[in-house]
């Protein structure tokens, strides 16, 4: 049916009216425990977290520091392994995979967006976006084409050759979003993506996330400690003391696109296309 999105293959940029996410699970966490040993002390970061996120969902994970939300994010992002429990990502059990296997999974299935942008310095926006495809083994011509396309999707056409230090914070974060998109991942994981941005730029980035989620059906997991940012998602999960405290849909979901229309446009030379 027309609402099905095969995440492994490339889709045209504009497909409208796919609001109902179908119930295919992308993330299945089953009784996840994570215990760190610091010297003689055992720290229980996660104490049995079970959670399912379906394809096309936009989930915000919240919680105070020490609540286990970062640990959860690291496990979801295959940067870390659970001590106990199973994690099935896109139909594949990744909970006991080796370092290299997890690297491959991250490469193919997960796009990362970080608080500090984490772009390679002294490297053009285009090359930064090409980077994940380099590790996937995409040939040069396709790399170039897909990177250009991803940069267009985040509204950065004409900025391909700029280096991160020639871009504003919002633009840098958009490059990072383009980079996360480019391997057509099953999931984009955004860790405090607006933490270093001012409020208008934050709304702009959220607008891109909402658009990608809506138009391409991309599954998004957003870690944030700002309640108003969490309201751009359609579901909010709150962590406390290594467990899920609450998990509920967002009642009055904010639309970043609507808000942008009402926000006064601060015209600086870098923000021309909205």
């Amino acid at each position, binding site marked *: 049916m027309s609402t099905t999105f095969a995440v492994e293959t490339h889709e045209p940029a504009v497909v409208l009216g796919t609001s109902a996410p179908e119930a295919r699970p992308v993330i299945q966490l089953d009784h996840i425990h994570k215990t760190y040993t610091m010297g003689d002390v055992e720290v229980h970061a996660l104490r049995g977290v079970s959670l399912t996120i379906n394809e096309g969902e936009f989930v915000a994970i919240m919680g105070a520091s020490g609540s286990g939300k970062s640990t959860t994010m*690291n496990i979801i*992002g295959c*940067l*870390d392994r659970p001590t106990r429990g199973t994690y099935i990502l896109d139909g594949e059990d990744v909970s006991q995979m080796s*370092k*290299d296997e997890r*690297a*491959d999974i*991250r*490469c*193919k299935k997960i796009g*990362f967006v*970080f608080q500090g942008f*984490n*772009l*390679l*310095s*002294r*490297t053009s926006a285009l*090359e930064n976006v090409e*980077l*994940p495809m*380099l*590790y*996937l*083994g995409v040939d040069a011509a396709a790399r170039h084409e897909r990177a250009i396309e991803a940069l267009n999707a985040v509204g950065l056409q004409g900025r391909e050759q700029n280096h991160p230090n020639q871009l504003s914070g919002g633009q840098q974060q958009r490059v990072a979003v383009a*980079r996360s998109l480019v*391997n057509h991942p099953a999931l984009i994981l955004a860790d405090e993506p607006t933490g270093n941005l001012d409020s208008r730029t934050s709304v702009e980035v959220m607008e891109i996330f909402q658009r990608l989620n809506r138009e391409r059906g991309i599954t998004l997991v957003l870690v944030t400690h700002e309640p108003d940012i969490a309201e751009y998602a359609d579901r909010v999960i709150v962590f406390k003391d290594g467990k899920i405290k609450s998990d509920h849909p967002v009642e009055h979901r904010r639309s970043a696109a609507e808000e942008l229309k009402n926000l006064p446009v601060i015209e600086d030379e870098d923000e021309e296309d909205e």
Partner: protein
Amino acid sequence: MNLLMIIRVAFRALVRNKMRAALTMLGIIIGVSAVIAMVSIGQGASASVQAQIESIGTNLLFVSAGAQNVGGVRSGTGDTGNQNLTVDDLEAIKREVPSVSMVTPSVNARSQLVAGNMNWNTNVTGVSEQYPDIRKWPVATGSFFTDADVRTAARVIVIGKTLADNLYAGADPIGQDIRVMNLPFRVVGVLAAKGQDQQGRDQDDVAFAPYTTVQKKILGRDRIQIAYVSAISQDATYTAQSQITDLLRQRHKLTANEPDDFTVRNMTDIAEAANETSKTMTILLACIAGVSLLVGGIGIMNIMLVSVTERTREIGIRMAIGARSSAVRSQFLIESIVLSLTGGAIGIVLGVALSLAIPAFLGWPTLVSMMAIVGSVLFSAAVGIFFGYYPARKAASLDPIEALRYE
């Protein structure tokens, strides 16, 4: 991710830090060019010694008076005060040793030579008429003196090119008189120019007279310091050497347990000794240059370690995005190999250029050795791998979560 891409990534990383890459490479550049230049100098010296020895003639033997035994090495050219090598001995060698074709004594007299209002200080060497054939040194103009001149102790002289130029300044010296110790000598020939020898001495600053004349008229004594003997062939030199030794021991009435009071050496031995010397020198020079290559390698390791620490965040980003540990390790390893190989390549160009420039500026002969070039390439690649491996492993072993958090 294939090798070509890793190489490109490595190149890009180096290009991003041009100054640092250039300075790091400098160590390898200096090392490699030093090795090549040093080996070229050594090989050049060796080749020119070899060529010189060959030009003298490999069937040449030296017989000298007295025996010196210094550190187990026999050398008889020193003045030992013994007067035990005589003209009769040489006559006997010529007469009785079948493997010997020619003999000439060589007696030196340092003298002032005067021609007209010009004068010049040089060695007048007394030799027999066979000297030009033994030393393979032809006469350019005029002729060498004859057997009869030697027998009659005639006052004739054959001069080298330098003397001819300095005493006669372009005029023909043949038939002119040169005064040696106030005795007039008639110039009968000028020898072909030889140029400088290995040590830079002018080989044309010489004069030759019959040995009988030098002994009687200049030195006033008939001792012989050294004689040149020509064997009938190169193969015959060892036979000639032992036959001469036997003959001289017999003539000098030496008993079996008495040491030789003379020394016989052949050119082949001297050539080998010279070869040995220049080989040792080449190895020594290469080793010293090799140390600088090693230091260059340590420089690479140092920079790569700094680079890994500095780029911890980059490593974290690459890993988070999907780089395997092996890709990160390869990237850093290839960066260091690229550094050392690029340095090596520039070093080769510089080293070869130096080797070609040295003869022009210092007057030393050089010979660019293919082996040194190949050796330096392999060595610099090995340096890159060896000194790059540890930093690369360090980079690959980083934990992506920790690395991303690194400020």
